[in-house]
């Protein structure tokens, strides 16, 4: 870059090439050079251009897609009173776990997440969501690294983004919001939009952002749909879902936008009205036929409602429109895997590999698929790759756990034992590994050890039925019928349709009746 280049143009160019810190530094120089005026005045000057560009650069640095980012804090989860129906009809609410109606695989085949939903092929913020019954449980469960969630969505990730941005500026914040005259900026739509995004994304000061947006929309005589969407976003962050809904709807009336539809659907999901959200998406599809974001949204909702087959249908529709859609490929792949078609799943995962996804999880899945598809030659190499690609201990633990599975499958119990031990070394919260290890101990006849391991597993993951059931069988074998009965009941609670548990319970009841 030549030294004689116009500095503003240079900054602009940096911005276009996403070199934001460079851009910001250039703008700072420009701003220092500009004569003493601190706030942009009536005409749009070079100073204003630099100011606006710097605001945008700082915003872009910390920008996270507002549609995708969604984190429900403990407080929202537990103190949530937005849903209308306390006990909704099955299939119309996201709150009820385990109400499979679409003929998806049972938890015996497909493992479930903490919330009792089958695990998906793609990790999204909302896939972690679970709804524990009590506040105590809610606070206690996320003590593991995997499931940690913020206290409220207002603290959590947003606040961290805000503080992160503060650190980058040693001279204090670029714009001192409390000293801004928001009404003045609201009258300059071009500056106001940049400033709003800065306040909203960079400073994470929703209240001031809302004030600015309200003033600006008034100045635009309520005719600018963009401001309405922004007000809706602020309300959504503040937890005022009904107000947000109103703003989004009004914006949609003015201008059909996919973004707005997605935001509105988010509001409905928070209000626990998945059917309304689905209808909204379907209406959106009439206006934007084949829109991937909408199709994907529908598929996600079906998946969260446990309607796996419908979800798969929509994921296939997504692929028809966009055959490089990673989320859809991964979800269809995992669905095939859990419905006993590892060969087809393998093809989907290979497709991912072709597209350049190259990480531990993918090789892990590939390894498992190869194993179940009886392509043993590829299995171990895949796992080796996965191990070498693992970025942290949790990932390593997962790989070892799966290797343990393979070892159990080929009957090498010693290897399996070692694998599960290695899993626990890497991640000592791995409940599934505890459970499997306990089963191995049981086979060896080490009852006491098995019992201890199972107890650990069930306290780590109360939502899994396996440790409870195993504990029940173990206790029944050693003659501790009372404990067996209690554990069996827990198991039934976690997975009502489990036949073995039911049989065990029946047997126990007969025993008690005899006594």
């Amino acid at each position: 870059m030549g030294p004689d280049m116009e500095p503003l143009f240079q900054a602009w160019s940096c911005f276009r090439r996403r070199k934001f810190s460079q851009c910001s530094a250039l703008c700072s120089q420009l701003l220092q050079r500009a004569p003493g005026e601190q706030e942009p005045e009536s005409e749009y000057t070079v100073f204003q251009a630099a100011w606006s560009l710097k605001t945008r650069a700082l915003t872009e640095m910390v920008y996270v897609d507002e549609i995708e980012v969604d984190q429900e804090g403990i407080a929202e989860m537990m103190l949530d009173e937005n849903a209308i129906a306390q006990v909704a009809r099955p299939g119309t609410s996201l709150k009820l776990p385990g109400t499979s109606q679409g003929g998806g695989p049972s938890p015996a085949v497909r493992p479930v997440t903490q919330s009792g939903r089958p695990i998906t092929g793609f990790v999204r913020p909302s896939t972690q969501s679970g709804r524990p019954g009590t506040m105590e449980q809610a606070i206690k469960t996320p003590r593991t690294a995997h499931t940690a969630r913020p206290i409220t969505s207002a603290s959590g990730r947003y606040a961290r983004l805000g503080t992160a941005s503060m650190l980058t500026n040693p001279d204090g914040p670029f714009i001192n919001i409390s000293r801004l005259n928001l009404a003045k900026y609201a009258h300059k739509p071009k500056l106001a939009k940049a400033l709003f995004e800065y306040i909203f994304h960079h400073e994470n000061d929703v209240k001031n952002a809302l004030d600015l947006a309200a003033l600006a929309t008034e100045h635009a005589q309520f005719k600018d749909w963009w401001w309405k969407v922004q007000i809706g976003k602020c309300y959504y962050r503040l937890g005022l879902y009904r107000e947000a809904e109103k703003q989004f709807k009004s914006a949609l009336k003015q201008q059909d936008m996919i973004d707005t539809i997605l935001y509105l659907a988010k509001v409905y999901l928070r209000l626990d009205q998945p059917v309304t959200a689905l209808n909204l998406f379907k209406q959106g599809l009439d206006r934007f036929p084949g829109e991937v974001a909408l199709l994907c949204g529908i598929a996600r909702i079906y998946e969260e409602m446990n309607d796996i087959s419908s979800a798969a249908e929509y994921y296939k529709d997504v692929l028809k429109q966009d055959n490089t859609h990673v989320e859809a490929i991964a979800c269809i792949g995992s669905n095939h895997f859990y419905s006993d078609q590892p060969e087809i799943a393998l093809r989907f995962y290979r497709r991912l590999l072709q597209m350049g996804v190259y990480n531990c999880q993918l090789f892990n899945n590939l390894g498992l698929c190869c194993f179940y598809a009886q392509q043993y030659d590829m299995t171990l190499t895949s796992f080796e790759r996965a191990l070498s690609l693992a970025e942290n201990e949790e990932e390593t633990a997962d790989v070892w756990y799966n290797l343990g599975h393979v070892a159990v499958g080929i009957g090498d119990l010693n290897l399996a034992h070692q694998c599960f031990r290695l899993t626990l070394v890497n991640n000592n919260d791995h409940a599934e590994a505890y459970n499997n290890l306990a089963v191995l101990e049981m086979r060896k006849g080490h009852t006491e050890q098995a019992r201890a391991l199972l107890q650990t597993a069930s306290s780590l993951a109360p939502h899994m039925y396996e440790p409870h059931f195993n504990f029940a069988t173990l206790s029944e074998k050693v003659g501790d019928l009372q404990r067996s009965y209690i554990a069996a009941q827990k198991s039934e609670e976690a997975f009502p349709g489990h036949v073995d548990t039911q049989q065990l319970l029946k047997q126990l009841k007969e025993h008690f009746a005899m006594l």
Partner: protein
Amino acid sequence: MVQSTQDADISLLNINQGITCLTSGVLNPQLGYDSLLVGTQTNLLAYDVHSNSDLFYKEVSDGANAIVLGTLGDISSPLAIIGGNCALQGFDYEGNDLFWTVTGDNVRSLALCDFDGDGKTELLVGSEDFDIRVFKEDEIVAEMSETETITALSPMYGSRFGYALSNGTVGVYDKTARYWRIKSKNHAMSIHAFDLNSDGVCELITGWSNGKVDARSDRTGEVIFKDNFASSIAGLVEGDYRMDGNTQLICCSVDGEVRGYLPGGEEMKGNLMDASAEQDLIRELSQKKQNLLLELRNYEENAKAELNTQLKEADGRRGVIPANTQLQTALSVNLGSDSQSAHVELCISTTNDTIIRAVLIFAEGIFEGESHVVHPSLQNLSGCVRVPLTPPKDVPVDLHIKAFVGYRNSTQFHVFELTRQLPRFSMYALSSPDSAAEPLSYVNCTMNERAQRIVMWLNQSFLLPEDAELQSAPFQVCFTSLRNAGQLCIKIKPGGEISISTDDIDLAGDIIQSMASFLAIEDLQVEADFPAYFEELRKVLVKVDERHAVNQRLTADMAEHSNLIRSMLVQAEDARLLGDMKNMKKRYIELYDLNRDLINQYKIRCNNHTELLNNLKAVNQAIQRAGRLRVGKPKTQVITACRDAIRNNNFNMLFRIMRVGTASS
């Protein structure tokens, strides 16, 4: 529905706001099943219970005091019509408001009924200003004045409908004529039309505050069935609750007792009362017999007295008065004195030396409890009784007068009954045209009517000392209000141009409406200017804007605070679980402080909201008043145009519409 484990047949819905009205029915014809409509002070929610999804959620700033669901007039899709503070709004299933109009006061009850028998339903609105108004779409076709707030309306069949007032009155109207009414010391909590005796005609079922339920015949008001609950009735509904194909009447009391009634079968022949009812009838008849015997004896005594020409005093004691005795009544305006405020005076006098022992006046809406008894003390008995009347509203009232006439020492009196109508604008006294400065505000209109007709109207509606004679065509009459000494001037110019000057926009509206109905004018466009009132309205509109802005900021503050509270609560609980009592205590103390702050803020918000509501009500009333200055089509146009102006926040346009009646100049 398989629902919560605790109570299998109850499922709870959480609305997060105080619920003010509730109804259900088919709102979306394509959906094919009922939707639930929930009205709160600020919102209306249409909710599809079956699929747990909203049909729409609308903010209604005027509140929703009453709701009714059904088709209205020519509007094809079913509407959810809500009545709020002075406003009526109808929403279709997509949440579009297809119907909007204003009414005189806060709406308390709504019903849909085919009022004029044209096969389309009209909307009945009962409001806090004691009026039942009938809307044919957005045009008022009839107004009935009652004596208290109308708490419930229920269509019966055809043009007949039942109503209940907050003072315990229940009755039935057919079109604008009242069939019957009864008054009880208890309050009617709920009324419903249901054919309980299977005679093909609905009875009016009333649930009372003392737990009584009775069914009354729609024609006579006679009780045909009654039952008693231990506590006050909460509501009455009908439905096929047992799913056996029969509709039942279901009554629910406030402490949760629910009883269902099936309609009586054919064999009962509409006779639902048990044996004790017959005994009641016998008792009643024997009492009647007793009364008749008493009367007969009186006549005999009188006949005896006529035979023996005895002393006059003895006659007096027996209650004989001259046959030509007449009771005369006169209404006049009394301008009042220091001790007494201005009022209308009813003077009742006899034509000879007989005296009036007592007067009983029965009139709706003038006296508390509808009747008034004047009972002069023994010393000042005379042949003339003056009763002060102060009707609170400008409505024509029928005075039913009963006077006891006799001699000073009579023990029996003759009862004279007569009815006198109080003119509509009786509270205005004629004054000389130049006695006070003419009001600045005026209404001008042109009526193609002869001046004589207008003079006739004047004579009928005002209490004039002597009937006004037709003077030369441009002539002027002035009145002073007895209530607030406001001036009213009516000028009639040649060519039918009429100008009404008064500062009271309500009065101007009443005069226009009264004239129009007397002269049978269908459409009337006027030009009006009320500078003082408009200025006030402008202030109110500015305030509404301010309140809206403040409200938004307060809401955002509140939301932020509540987020903070949530996080503190979780932190405190976390500390408790960890056994960190010191921290927990600290958190809870913080929480307590924050909570106090929040409550203070809430109070501020509440005040803000109440003021906003009052201001909005004032705006709605202004539109209503501007409408009342016109008749027929111009009236509807003005109301619609005013609403558009308010929606667009165009105040100048609003005032122009109120002045000239149209948006375009």
